[in-house]
């Protein structure tokens, strides 16, 4: 099973000591062990079982302001010895950069709180199989469903993060997840949709019947889509994709994008970027949540941060390196956001759908059409037309386009926030986007 802290600590100390012996002035190291077991089903039969047992060491050595890194999966001391030597050799000849350094000592995480991120329960493969049978039996009740695939993955992780300033910390985490993909058909054309559940604790997962039913219902609803005419229209983002707005914000306010000058939000700190009603929070200390952490990937303490308050951009996401470039202190966001979410809006989902006569309701986007430098956005989309508050017919083979700067200012939130992912948003409306279709 998963290796204990002592084992990982021993490797971490070995790396730090040996790097120092060879001339490193500073050292940072992470040692990880993870065990993952996955079972997948297709059309109510076992399709695949997969067991993974993996180690990783990530080592960064500094000689004054020079820096280099190595990663390896082989934890044997003979291998590490060779790699440390290689890392030091590369460090010596890498040009120095005045911003290279370990984080300030006083910013480091001092105590590790138990955030309830580890469930030691082992769910044996036989149980996973029973679970998946239930998922697929429910998913395939309707005769329009012609194909189902379902999977169950159990992950256990343990890690140690350490540096030569004396920081050493780590803890176990777990994850249980199950998903179902259903394919529906009518007149030879097919549609696909899915549902999933991913939690830290086994007992918190959705019921298998629920996962199967939702996947099948969604796949059936998508059948017989129409391509609509090109027009400007209000676009409602389903909760599955409304969170992508927050991911875009996170990339645009990362210290690296700001320092490099490659963000459409450069120089927008303390400016109104969203409507006044909007608050955006990144909170790493939520018990059991998927994005929770005690400290960031450099060991810096992370605390809850209001990124946007009353529509005003209040904070960047700062790590040590780019923080130094910007003359700002790290706020524990090396590695990005933690549990990022919009605070709930005031309208119910139903009221939002009724707030205009006609909307486009998007449930899926495809493509990577967001440009963080210019803010331009254009992606493929599918979903439904909403007329007088009702979903009237499915729509596909269209694109939605706009510019994030404008889109951010035209957001209205519903009040149906749910913590299902590490980044979460309620259903949201963006007034006026360009839809390209026929």
């Amino acid at each position, binding site marked *: 099973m998963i290796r204990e802290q002592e084992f990982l600590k021993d490797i971490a100390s070995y790396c730090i000591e040996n790097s120092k012996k060879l001339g490193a002035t500073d050292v940072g190291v992470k040692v990880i062990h993870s065990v993952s077991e996955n079972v997948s089903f297709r059309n109510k039969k076992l*399709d695949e*079982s997969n067991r*993974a047992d993996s180690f990783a060491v990530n080592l960064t050595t500094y000689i004054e302001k020079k820096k280099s890194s190595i990663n390896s999966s082989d934890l044997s001391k003979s291998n590490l010895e060779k790699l440390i030597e290689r890392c030091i050799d590369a460090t010596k000849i890498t*040009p120095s950069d005045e911003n290279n350094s370990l984080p300030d000592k006083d910013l480091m995480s001092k105590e590790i709180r138990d955030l309830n991120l580890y469930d030691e329960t082992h769910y044996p493969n036989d149980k996973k199989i029973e679970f998946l049978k239930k998922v697929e039996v429910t998913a395939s009740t309707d005769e329009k469903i012609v194909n189902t695939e379902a999977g169950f993955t159990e992950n256990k992780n343990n890690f140690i993060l350490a540096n030569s300033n004396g920081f050493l910390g780590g803890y176990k985490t777990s994850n249980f997840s199950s998903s179902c993909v259903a394919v529906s058909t009518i007149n030879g054309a097919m549609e696909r949709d899915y549902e999933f559940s991913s939690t830290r604790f086994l007992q918190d997962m959705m019921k298998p019947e629920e996962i199967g039913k939702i996947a099948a219902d969604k796949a059936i609803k998508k059948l017989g889509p129409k391509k609509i005419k090109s027009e400007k229209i209000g676009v409602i983002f389903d909760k599955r994709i409304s969170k992508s707005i927050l991911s875009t914000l996170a990339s645009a306010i990362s210290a690296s994008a700001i320092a490099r000058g490659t963000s459409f939000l450069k120089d927008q700190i303390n400016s109104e970027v969203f409507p006044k009603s909007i608050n955006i929070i990144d909170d790493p200390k939520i018990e059991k949540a998927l994005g929770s952490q005690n400290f960031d990937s450099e060991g810096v303490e992370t605390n809850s941060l209001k990124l946007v308050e009353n529509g005003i951009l209040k904070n960047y996401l700062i790590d040590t390196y780019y923080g130094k470039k910007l003359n700002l202190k790290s706020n524990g966001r090396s590695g990005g956001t933690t549990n990022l979410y919009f605070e709930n809006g005031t309208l119910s989902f139903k009221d939002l759908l009724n707030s205009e006569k006609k909307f486009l309701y998007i449930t899926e986007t495809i493509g990577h059409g967001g440009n963080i430098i210019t803010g331009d956005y*254009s992606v493929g989309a599918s979903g439904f037309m909403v007329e007088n508050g009702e979903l009237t017919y499915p729509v596909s*083979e269209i694109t939605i386009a706009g510019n994030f700067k404008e889109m951010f200012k035209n957001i209205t939130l519903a009040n149906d926030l749910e913590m299902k992912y590490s980044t979460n948003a309620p259903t949201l409306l963006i007034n006026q986007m360009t839809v*390209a279709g026929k």
Partner: protein
Amino acid sequence: MSNFFKNTDIDTSQAEAIVTKTLKNCDDGELYLENHKSESIVLDDNKIKSSTYNSDQGYGFRAVTGEVVAYSHSNDISKESLRKSSENLKDTLKSKKGTYNHEIPKTNSKYYENINPIESKTFDSKIDLLNSVNNYLRSKGSIVNQVTANFLGEHKSIEIIRSDNQVLKDDRPLVRFNVSVVLEKDGKKETGVYGVGGRQSYDDYLKDGSWKDVCDEAFRIANVNLESKPAPAGEMKVVLGPGWPAILIHEAIGHGLEGDFNRKKTSAFHNLMGQQVASEGVTIVDDGTLHQRRGSLTIDDEGTPTENTVLIENGILKNYMQDRLNARLMGTKSTGSGRRESYKHVVLPRMRNTMMLSGKYSQDEMISSVDKGIFAVSFGGGQVDITSGKFVFNCTEAYEINNGKIGSPIKGATLIGDGPSILKEVSLVGNDMKLDPGIGTCGKAGQGVPVGVAQPSILINKMTVGGTKL
């Protein structure tokens, strides 16, 4: 003699014995061993931002019977670890009984040399070149706002041990050199990205100052985009330039012709074999045998030699791309398309170098035939929903066409289409087929593998352009 068992408590013959015993009642399977070394050196914002060296080694043990795949992988190559994996596989397949297929074709061809690109160029000279790139681009004027350049190099050794001591080996070099530049003019910022690569040493792509061509191309694209206007929205004619725009084919057709989706009948193409799926002038192949190309493989990750697979011939659907599992279940042969990202991943049927072959028209003829449309020259990524067949890709360099003439550049926009019908809308196929510069990575089921694409210029009668201008 295998290098994988050096410094372990197990030797080749013992490993072979475990494999043979584990796979006795299975239809197929193997022990796949991999040693992967890679490096990444990044220059950004006038500095060497990072230099990283990765060393990874491990095995993936696979047993297959009927439709069921049992897989176990670890980076601990030892007797105990293999024994545990073996038990895990046998336990999954305990109620199944299969007959091992020993047949696997052999090859004497080699499509690349066994060199280690990381070691064949000194660290110092890589740093020097990155600095030269930075200086060269910044010397083009204060318009240059940001320069990023990086080396990505790797060497992968694989060994496949099949039942009854069949051993197959391959050594694969791979490099990629990328330049990205951000230009700023009158408060407007735009990016240009270009790269080159393949299965040779870095210097094969960069010698005689050819690195400057890479810089110039990135600069040119960014410069064009500084002048770009909002893209149009709606259905119109689209002319695609040759080379890299063939990711259209990769997304629209390629994924839908992978064996697994067709065996499972989840591909929009699963009932179209032998039928007309494209205009008559359209022939598409997937070729793993091109020398030193990014998507080429001497043998695939199951040990099958690769080949040039004809997918669509004169518009007729001829073949799917197959790995051993899907080929067996569909009653056909592997096309050498079984690939995996690493020992941590199961084999899937994947593309290698996907190419549309040349026709007879010139690009000028295509453009002059268009009243209103766009001319797309360069692309970012793409994506497809193989079940509904809808696919997208993002333009990074495109122009409007008005009355048969190329007009202003337009902003990046997504194009969307329907895979099974798009190739019927191809009305002219150009005589200028070109390979991409060797930069593509294809993602499927969370696994990334290097691929190539090629095509001539083509004219598509009708496609939806996702701009903002109505």
